[in-house]
């Protein structure tokens, strides 16, 4: 596509795919810079969900009627799309969850509680989202396992030398974020997984920010567990993916129990369904899975070449313009080859919440806060930052509007 159409035409086309972008906020055109929190949804995803409820809403896998069959086929085909999207070896390795948070909790509950023992070590990093900290703390308390933390350098990257020193025979799990939601840093997860495996440790990679950011190949990364968030990759909220190796899923106990995950039930004993159903108790989020499947179609129709080109050009333009504003501090971003266009910054003398309110008055949506990364904020010595995160529907003009907004913040509090 990028070769046929000019980049401006591609951008205009993509913008027109996202209906919310045409609205006004506080009298200005919406400039949505909060895609790391959740991306906007293209019309085709909204339509796929509406189409399900309008034309073939039904429960799956248990109704012999036509609607039931159509819904089951659509749900299963969404799983197959996701499996192909991340290059899973088997479709049954893809478990639908509420999101990354539930996927990590599932692993902590079903794998962690069974395999972690007193004195075993879990390695996390300082840039983890709370979703990849708290579930492990709970399991560590229960089992006596110990949490070790890889620090983040002033450049906003993981201290790999420190990581290598932490690894030992005691390491049973390494659980790390693939792309930082706060800094935009892309971590070298393949190398991290390879090093962990030298000690026989299992590896979980939290890919919440990755579905819309880059092609994912779970076989190449070779992590044992990989998680995806649907709503951060143009899909609906309440749906995500846990990918795990087949043999691991087969030996893990169920996370939740009930309907849909059984073979035979009597009051003495129950035998569980095969994977993936074993991990999907109750009626799943059918419309969510269908919507996410459509989001995958959308990403693939655009093509990674186009997506990466847009994001890299937004990154370069963004980092250059932001760095040159007197009075702001940009966190991370010393290594420009390994970052996505997510910028956390502090404006001199203006608290991030005031920054967010002032920008909002100009129609610019940014996040202000700790981004569910309180340990990382402590490392930076700030209680909070403002964060502007860009996606494929953003333009260089959006960067210009942001810069103008930041200058207005500085002016108001000067």
């Amino acid at each position, binding site marked *: 596509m990028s070769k046929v159409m000019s980049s401006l035409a591609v951008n205009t086309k993509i913008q027109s795919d996202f209906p919310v972008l045409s609205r006004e906020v*506080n*009298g200005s055109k919406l400039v949505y810079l909060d895609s790391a929190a959740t991306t906007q949804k293209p019309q085709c995803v909204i339509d796929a969900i509406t189409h399900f409820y309008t034309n073939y809403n039904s429960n799956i896998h248990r109704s012999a009627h036509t609607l039931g069959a159509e819904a089951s086929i659509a749900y299963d085909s969404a799983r197959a799309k996701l499996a192909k999207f991340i290059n899973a070896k088997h479709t049954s390795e893809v478990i639908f969850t509420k999101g990354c948070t539930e996927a990590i909790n599932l692993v902590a509950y079903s794998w962690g509680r069974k395999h972690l023992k007193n004195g075993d070590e879990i390695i996390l990093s300082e840039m983890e989202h709370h979703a990849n900290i708290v579930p492990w703390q709970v399991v560590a308390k229960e089992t006596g396992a110990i949490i070790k933390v890889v620090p983040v350098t002033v450049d906003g990257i993981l201290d790999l030398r420190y990581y290598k020193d932490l690894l030992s025979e005691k390491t049973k799990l390494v659980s790390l974020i693939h792309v930082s939601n706060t800094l935009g840093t892309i971590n070298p997860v393949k190398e991290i997984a390879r090093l962990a495996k030298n000690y026989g440790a299992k590896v979980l990679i939290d890919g919440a920010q990755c579905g819309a950011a880059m092609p994912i190949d779970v076989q190449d990364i070779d992590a044992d567990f990989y998680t995806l968030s649907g709503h951060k990759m143009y899909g609906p909220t309440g749906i995500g993916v846990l990918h795990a190796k087949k043999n691991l899923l087969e030996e893990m106990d169920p996370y939740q129990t009930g309907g849909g995950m059984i073979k035979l039930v009597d009051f003495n004993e129950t035998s569980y369904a095969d994977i993936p159903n074993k991990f999907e108790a109750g009626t799943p989020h059918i419309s969510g899975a269908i919507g996410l499947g459509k989001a995958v179609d959308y990403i693939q129709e655009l093509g990674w070449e186009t997506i990466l080109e847009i994001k890299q050009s937004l990154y370069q333009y963004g980092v250059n313009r932001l760095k040159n504003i007197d009075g702001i501090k940009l966190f991370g971003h010393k290594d420009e080859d390994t970052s996505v266009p997510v910028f956390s910054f502090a404006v001199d*003398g*203006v*608290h*991030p*919440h*005031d920054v967010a*309110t*002032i920008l*909002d*008055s100009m129609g610019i949506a940014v996040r*202000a*806060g*700790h981004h569910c990364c309180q340990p990382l904020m402590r490392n930076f010595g700030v*209680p*909070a930052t403002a964060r502007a995160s860009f996606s494929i529907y953003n333009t260089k003009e959006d960067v210009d509007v942001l810069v103008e907004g930041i200058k207005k913040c500085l002016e*108001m*509090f000067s």
Partner: protein
Amino acid sequence: MDLGELYQEIIIDHSKNPRNHVVLENYTHEAEGYNPLCGDKVHLYINMDNGIVEKISFQGCGCAISQASASILTQMASGKKLETIVDIGERFRDVLTNNSSNTDDFESLDALLGVKNYPMRIKCATLAWHTFTEAIGSCNKLHTGDKNE
């Protein structure tokens, strides 16, 4: 959207030059208010005598609205009857969250009424006032600067 209504000069002045921004050497009541969603913190120290707020100070960090509100609270409360401040605090919260318009004796607090039009920021403005309520309910005991107390 009129930002001037929210960030009035008096608010920016209080946030940049907070009044009574120390820890009292002697205080009878204290409490720390914290909003985990945005990270705003206000720690109030109050020296109360016979139903009168003799001295009041605060420490904290957060947005301009939260810190200005705390600063204005300490400025207003100093030397006043406890019940007067409690009454103002209750009416302030009422004006921001309900449709009340009783703003008698609001003094500089009037400057914070623009927050009413910013629902996401109301908690910032009321944090110090909630903390005040919490502090006066705390143990009535004289704390001194002596750490070995």
